[in-house]
């Protein structure tokens, strides 16, 4: 039994700025991190491994330097780490990305072991589309269970999974046959911290790289050519409200009074 976790290397968005001229992300010198939601998917896969003894494969599509992300997964305890990297994969939107990831999962299913579960973060923090997970499920014809905050039961032999989904203001409990694709939210678990010994081993490990020669996908379905989505503009929303008033440190009482005056002037303090 194999669990596949899809992870993505993303720029640390707290440190990202947008180039005002080109409308693109300024990525120079910005450190990369593992997409935070994906770390919870990874943790859940590793917990299932601890419980059921199944194997875990982590896959990631990205440039060669995304190897670091997969090494982090190895340090945490995944059995296989595969980087899907090829120039022809570049510029992909969520559709083209899900084509590549689905092909890799099919290959793992055929060559390594029967895939029972695919786990993804609910979305990435750079694109925020939340489409890639469901896209994979559609391509593979797996059941898709999104926004999972708890796996209630899992029966590999009976091929059944029951999960809780975190929706707005409520939870929904659903059951589905395996194989299934889950996207997970942060409430699912607390990710573990890597042991030093495993980090050292991961640092030495060679991450397997699959390019399109390996996957053999139609170039019209991958990369920029396979991406129907157009990004016309990226921008930081203008801050049209809010201001910093006074000096709360030097004069807390005066600043509070100033704030009250301002709020009253705008008729925002019902008296």
């Amino acid at each position, binding site marked *: 039994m194999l669990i596949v976790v899809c992870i993505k290397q993303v720029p*640390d968005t*707290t440190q990202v700025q947008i180039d005002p001229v080109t409308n693109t992300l300024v990525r120079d010198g910005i*450190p990369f991190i593992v997409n935070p939601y994906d770390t919870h998917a990874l943790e859940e896969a590793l917990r299932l491994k601890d419980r059921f003894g199944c194997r875990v494969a982590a896959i990631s599509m990205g440039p060669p330097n995304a190897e670091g992300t997969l090494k982090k997964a190895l340090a945490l305890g995944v059995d296989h780490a595969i980087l899907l990297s090829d120039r022809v994969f570049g510029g992909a939107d969520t559709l083209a990305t899900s084509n590549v990831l689905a092909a890799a999962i099919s290959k793992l299913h055929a060559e390594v072991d029967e895939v029972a579960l695919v786990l993804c973060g609910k979305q990435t923090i750079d694109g925020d589309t939340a489409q890639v997970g469901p896209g994979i499920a559609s391509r593979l014809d797996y059941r898709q269970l999104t926004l999972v905050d708890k796996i209630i039961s899992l029966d590999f032999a009976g091929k059944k999974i029951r999960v809780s989904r975190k929706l707005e203001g409520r939870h929904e409990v659903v059951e589905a046959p395996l194989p299934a694709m889950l996207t997970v939210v942060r409430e699912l678990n*607390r990710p573990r*911290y*890597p*042991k*030093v010994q495993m*980090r*050292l081993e991961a640092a030495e490990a060679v991450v397997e790289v699959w390019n399109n020669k390996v996957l053999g996908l139609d170039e019209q379905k991958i990369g920029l050519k396979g991406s129907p989505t157009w990004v016309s503009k990226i921008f930081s929303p203008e801050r049209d409200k809010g201001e910093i008033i006074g000096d709360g440190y030097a004069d807390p009482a005066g600043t509070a009074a100033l704030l009250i005056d301002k709020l009253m002037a705008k008729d925002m303090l019902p008296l």
Partner: protein
Amino acid sequence: MTPNPTVFATLLLVSLAVFAWGCWKRLSLISLGAPENRFDNIGTRFGEMLLYAFGQKRVVAKPFGINHFIIFWSFLILMVANTEFILNGLLPHTIKLIRLPFELYVPLAFMIDIASLLALIAVTVAAVRRLVAPPYPEARTLEAFVILGLIAVLMLASFTLNASELAAIMLKSHADPESFLRAARKIMPVAGLLAGQLPLPQLEVIHTAAWWAHALALLAFICYLPNSKHMHILTAIPNCFFRRLEKPNTVPREEFSAGATFGVDRVDHYSWKDLLDSFSCTECGRCQNVCPASITGKPLNPRAVIHDIKINLLENGSALKKGGAPGSPLIGEKGEGSVSEESIWSCTTCGACMEACPVFIEQMPKIIQLRRHLVETEAKFPEELLNLFENMEGRSNPWGIAPSERTKWCSQLDVKPFDGETMEYLFYVGCAGSFDSRNKHVSVAMAQLLDKAGISWGILGKDEKCCGDSVRRLGNEFVFDKIAKENVALFKERGVKKVVTQCPHCFSTLKNDYRQYGLELEVIHHSELLRNLVQDGTLVLNKTAEGMGTTVFHDSCYLGRHNDVYDAPREVIAAATGAAPAEMERSRNNAFCCGAGGGRMWMEEHVGERINLTRVNEALEQKPDTICVACPYCMTMFEDGLKDVKADNVQVRDVAEVMAEAVLR
């Protein structure tokens, strides 16, 4: 009336065998420890040993230590008497002190008599103290009373023995008893006095009884010694010799290669010196009486940690000697021989225990070694630390704030990037100084003071990284190692020679820890630099910082105890306010931690009284208007504590802010 030499010789041989066996058993366990070089600077070591072991410098630092000093020196003097006693027991009539030339005998006999009296008084006082007001409640052990009792029996027996011998000589010489005893009292005041009281007809019985009482007590003492905490008689002196000559404010580096072990989870992973420490502890309890965790009811007790290491070593020693695995865990639930995880995480690494220990046991590094095992090998630690570790590794600051925000504190100032060619000082602002909204004010004050003094200085800005103090004290050596290497490379690349810090944790890490990475910097704490600038007239005071009112100063552990900077911050406050700050009950090397060191800044404090509240209340006893600090962590702990006790009228100010008040306003 002389004892049977054959019986005595047999008993002596048995006792010596028990003694040797006990010593060998324990000392051979010490050799299980990992290698560590403590043989450098032999001359200095010898001197320190004379001062601290024979001079008992740290023992007498507490009033009751004088009692120990008396017992220790009496013991050394009485070694002469006991050697005579043993030799005399083996070869009766051959070896007697009295056969020495009279000029030598008289002072020797006098010294022995007085030493015995002093020892008897001292052990009585010690026993009474243990009964009435013990140093700590668990100190009333049978072991302690057995040892004190044995010493008392030895003294009483030796008085009786000497008295009966004097009386026998008196009878034999047919001298006038009055004048004989008067002369005898001049030589041996106590024994002489006692000699006059003895019933002469039973003299022989008394002599024999006293002799055997003395012999048996002495032999029992010899047998008991290496098998009890009293073994410190043998180990404490070498422990002072082998002490860490530099302050134990750092822990050794670890090598990160595959197959290595990280930290300590079994006793034989400690160094031999760590194991010697465990046999040198006589459980005086001074460490636990100054430990902020112990005092406020946390599960940590530094004395118990050392004791547990010893017990674990004794329990597992034979298995380990055979190359086997230990049967009982070193890190485990409460119980003798195991240190609990809760206690390991309670340490603030304030160093008070090491400062208090009369024989230089190094408690703190041992606790950090245990943390290393938990973090690095087991990835097991309080959950609050997960974010900290990830933030430190990912964004090189505890809060996980974007490194690009490091310069926000000086957005209104004209602060230049550091240039090694043209600038003297790197102002290493530190994470708190860069990101903590309260502490940014200290950075601003410091920047303005540096400019006012005409110092050429710069900052690393967005390139500045955390120094790694918290992760190192928390046992995450792997991440510290990465941070330290990056910083060392950065400092070398930028040509940094002189650094000023406003945080004692940055100060100590840059100054002491980075030396292990081959970086020798001239690191100065801002309190020292400000003091120097005022003293040499570079920084001119415009007025007295009257707004501060009555001040009290709190010593930061990493400035004071770990680096011996006590006077500079006080002198800065005195210069700025015109009056020396008030002192708390516990100050300078005896100061009480704010509770934030050792990574505790980032952890919850669920058990017992809060350490910062204890300290805040101690500060408030001085009725201050301003509590002065020289550390961002202390500042946070005091500000939080003052809010908790609703002392709104008391403010917390860093020494730089106090100085700024006098220089800039």
